[in-house]
């Protein structure tokens, strides 16, 4: 157990402004990186900015553990008129996730960008990456619905550009980025339309305020329309089945730095925002909110978990397998949330964290191998285990965790999910989880068989072991998969307090 209550990560002067600094630090770093004289300097700026944000996130975590909720009023204008940052247990968990993923990705980026992106674009890539980080952290920190839209767009604009930069390696990155741009914009537009409706109904944009006023008028059709728009908009951003069309392309063809960061964070923050709206802003128990969770969210999540796992089984390119797997795992997370119990939400959020860690490990291992080997298809990875044993082993650990092999974090995540479903009496959820896990196991087995048990054909391009700068963060992540598999008290603690923050007031 880590006692967050006694965690004073930063001096009091910094801690007081930590919620804002956490968001602003990457923003400032983004500007600095864009102006940096060389690729190396921009990389250093990127690492510094990410580490600083993570530090501030830790400071906020300590404060939240002590006070329950941290409210930070920007510029001294009190809400509902002013903009406020509002971070509770749920926000802390996602913020820690995003910022630590940012640190890992920025460490990794030093090596990956040199082979994947032209040297003249490095500074801009780092700038975009930091912008994206700003957007995601801001989205988590803010307590204002419209502000959330702004941050969502900040992060998205960063990622649209970054996905497109993958075109040096694979021309399909361009249509994928365009696809992502269109879908993402539609999603954001829907979200802002929904916010408009809600503003019309309640006259406020502050989420807490909105929740208080909505409690009195939940039968209004304006509110219902607003709810529908918000959920569909965020569903697109969160790659909720069947709104996930943009994701496989964006994950597969982007530079590996972006795949890593997106896979760990982008859909997760949208899920966070959606959970905020479904369970927090709209008082759960409002008839249509409940109906949505039971009759829309849960069935779609179940279908997504199974259908996308199946797609992953039959997919031929390794990164697309992982991308479809991500959509399926979003289904797992939403299934947990849709149980609408504290246990279910806690299991879902635990899974969210576990999946972020797993996917960042997998994409980083793949990226490390791909630095020397331009392989995409499964067959081209034959024999990589002999040529790059360290990367391959880390990949295997991540894959085992994804499949839910005991002694890894993924196993405990599945355990908690099934436990929560059984406790809520939702047997059908257990069945869906079991089937989807079985399919997960199949595609994981296909990947590992190609990498470990097949000999490389003669004359095929050889892979080289990834450089130490990549292996170090990679093995930290792989080690965490195992460490948390043996002692998951830290993520469990975070997920539990997040679930309590989310559903504490709910029946």
């Amino acid at each position, binding site marked *: 157990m880590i006692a967050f209550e006694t965690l004073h990560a930063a001096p009091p002067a910094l801690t007081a402004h930590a919620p804002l600094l956490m968001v602003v630090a990457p923003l400032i770093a983004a500007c600095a990186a864009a102006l940096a004289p060389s690729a190396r300097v921009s990389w250093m700026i990127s690492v510094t900015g990410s580490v600083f944000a993570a530090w501030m996130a830790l400071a906020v975590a300590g404060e939240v553990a002590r006070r329950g909720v941290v409210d930070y009023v920007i510029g001294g204008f009190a809400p509902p008129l002013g903009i406020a940052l509002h971070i509770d247990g749920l926000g802390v968990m996602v913020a820690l996730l995003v910022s630590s993923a940012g640190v890992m990705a920025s460490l990794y980026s030093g090596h990956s960008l040199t082979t994947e992106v032209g040297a003249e674009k490095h500074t801009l890539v780092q700038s975009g990456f930091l912008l994206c980080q700003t957007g995601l952290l801001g989205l988590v920190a803010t307590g204002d619905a419209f502000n959330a839209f702004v941050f969502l767009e900040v992060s998205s604009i960063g990622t649209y550009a970054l996905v497109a930069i993958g075109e040096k390696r694979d021309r399909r990155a361009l249509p994928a980025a365009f696809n992502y741009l269109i879908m993402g914009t539609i999603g954001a537009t829907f979200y802002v339309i929904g916010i408009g409706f809600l503003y019309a109904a309640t006259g406020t944009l502050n989420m807490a305020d909105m929740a208080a006023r909505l409690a009195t008028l939940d039968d209004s059709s304006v509110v219902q329309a607003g709810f529908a728009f918000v959920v569909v908009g965020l569903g697109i951003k969160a790659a909720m089945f069947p709104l996930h069309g943009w994701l496989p392309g964006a994950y597969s063809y982007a530079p590996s730095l972006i795949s890593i960061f997106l896979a760990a964070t982008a859909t997760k923050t949208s899920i966070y925002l959606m959970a905020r709206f479904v369970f927090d802003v709209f008082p759960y128990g409002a008839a249509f909110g409940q109906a949505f969770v039971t009759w829309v969210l849960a069935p779609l999540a179940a279908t997504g978990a199974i259908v996308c796992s199946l797609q992953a089984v039959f997919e031929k390119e390794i990164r697309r397998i992982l991308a479809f797997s991500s959509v399926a795992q979003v289904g797992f997370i939403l299934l947990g949330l849709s149980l609408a119990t504290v246990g279910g939400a806690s299991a879902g959020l635990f899974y969210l964290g576990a999946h972020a860690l797993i996917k960042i490990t997998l994409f980083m291992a793949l990226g490390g191998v791909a630095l020397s080997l331009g392989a995409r298809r499964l067959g081209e990875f034959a024999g990589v285990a002999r040529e790059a044993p360290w990367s391959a082993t880390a990949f295997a650990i991540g894959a085992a965790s994804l499949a*839910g*092999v*005991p*002694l890894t974090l993924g*196993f*405990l995540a*599945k*355990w*908690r999910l*099934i*436990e929560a479903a*059984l*406790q809520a009496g939702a047997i059908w959820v*257990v069945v869906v989880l*079991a*089937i989807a*896990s*079985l399919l997960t*196991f199949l595609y994981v*087995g296909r990947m590992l068989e190609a990498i470990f*048990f097949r000999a490389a054909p003669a004359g095929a391009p050889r892979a080289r072991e990834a450089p130490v700068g990549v292996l170090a963060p990679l093995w930290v992540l792989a080690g965490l998969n195992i460490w948390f*598999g*043996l*002692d*998951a*008290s830290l993520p*469990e603690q975070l997920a539990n307090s997040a679930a309590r923050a989310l559903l504490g007031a709910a029946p």
Partner: protein
Amino acid sequence: MNTGELLIFLALAVPLFAAAAIYAVGRMPDVRETLTIIACIALSVITISMFMRVGAGDPPTLTVARPLAGLEIAFRLEPLGALFALMASLLWGVNSLFSVGYMRGKREANQTRFYMCFALAMFAVMGIAMAANLFTLFIFYEVLTFSTYPLVTHTGDARARAAGRVYLATLVGASLVLFLPGIIGVQIVAGSTAFTQGGLLPGRVDATTGDILLLLLVFGAAKAALMPLHGWLPSAMVAPAPVSALLHAVAVVKAGVFAILKVSAYIFGPDLISTLPAATWLLWIAAGTIVIASVIAMTKDDLKSRLAWSTVGQLAYVTSAALLPAAAGLVAGGLHMLVHAFAKITLFMCAGAIYVATGASKVSEMRGLGRSMPIVFSCFLIGALCVIGLPPFAGMWSKFLLIKAAFGTREWFTAAAMVISSLLGLLYLAPVALRACWSRLAMDRHAPSSVRRRARTGCCGADDHSCSMCRAVPAGGWRRQLSCANRGEGAMSEGTQDVAPKEKPQLGEPGEHPLSVLLFSWMRGKLFFRLLMAGLSALGAVLIALEVVLSHRPVTSLVNMPGFFGIFGFLAFGIAVLSGWPFGKLMRRPEDYYDTRSGEAGRDR
């Protein structure tokens, strides 16, 4: 850390460390194999001292990690687990010695991976044996699955990969879909999964929940190969013989039945089991598995495949024992697990030895090989008789206890299945060794017909044991024997001329060994059939009489239906008679049924 905890730690650490060390010295085969043997000996010493300590004082407990609140990876030493650990570690040593010879003899590739995975599998077995709760047991159960997968696919060809896929899909599928939800169900119902003396669940579940959990847990332990989840075991026969020994005797299937025994003894407890209807259903399924597997084993010509089916049947014995509503069943089950392991490893090693020495893998190819490999086939016979359960071999005691427990709890189906399957075992296992010793060589097809005839009449048909072929056949199989026969043509021709004119009235079939004639010809007389018929009729009459007298345990409400037993008996009788057709065809086919390629064998009679 006291001695007991230290022993637990060492039992886990030694194989794990051995695996790492084997990997490190993989380039030097001699060092690698010495290391393996040393690890075997060390582990055996550890498990023996653990076994000696069982029952003395508090059982030592070692908690390693606590992943989530309420979940522990913990170990505790109890008698059944100590027995399992002891058995596995001793057999690992024997099997490693055998592996060294086998793998070198066959010049197999990837030997370092082989020994490393073997050591990892032992690590998993130790974890399973000493697990203090279901959660820990599940973790190591999965580790065992994954560490044995590279062994099953060792040869790496398409057949091996297909078998590996079946292996993983069945085992992992069952544990994900059935075992894991079952364990989580136990965790929710009882708040823990700790193995508790007398059972964890009694008083905490109603009948329905108990039924569901029992079904989930018993079928989830697919390593126990209870039908219909048995398919992986026969298909895994593509693996090399030491791996088969590992699968069938040392570790894998034993881990399955061990899990079922533990679940029965320490999660449900005999008292709860005796009240659950699901236990009765499972007993029927196990009884069915016992009989069906034995019948299928009879049809298999491939020796390893025959042995695999025999294993399926024998495992169902242990499963039945675990589910009998009496504590006596658990004792019998534990004993049978142990005895069967020792017997089966003997059989598989014999099969491996025969294969390495002669290349013969089919039963039909082994006729007459007994003369060149007398020791191997004697061992095979001993192993076979032990599996069948004939005195004075160990198998007798476990079967005796099993059948006694089945009778004691009035599980007639189970008892009958066990008796029938033992008889069938006599039919499919014993003849392998007997024919190898007493039948003529299977070499004839390839030899010129004159040699062939002479080899038969001169050597085996005419009781001429002074012939050079029967006395001193070199090791190395029938090919060399054939050349020996060619060389000895002149020497044997005299004997042929002597014997051929004496046409004695033949009792047995042409070419049959005289001893076999002596032993079995009485079965062919008409008197025997009459006696048999009379005996069967009397048995039938007694059974009908008993039917009137005995009261039945009302298994289902169906029994109370008027005339149920009449209808049931009629249907069963009809099925038995009708099944005589295919069965008769099966039993009456010629001995050379397998060699239908040329049809020569049939023509020659």
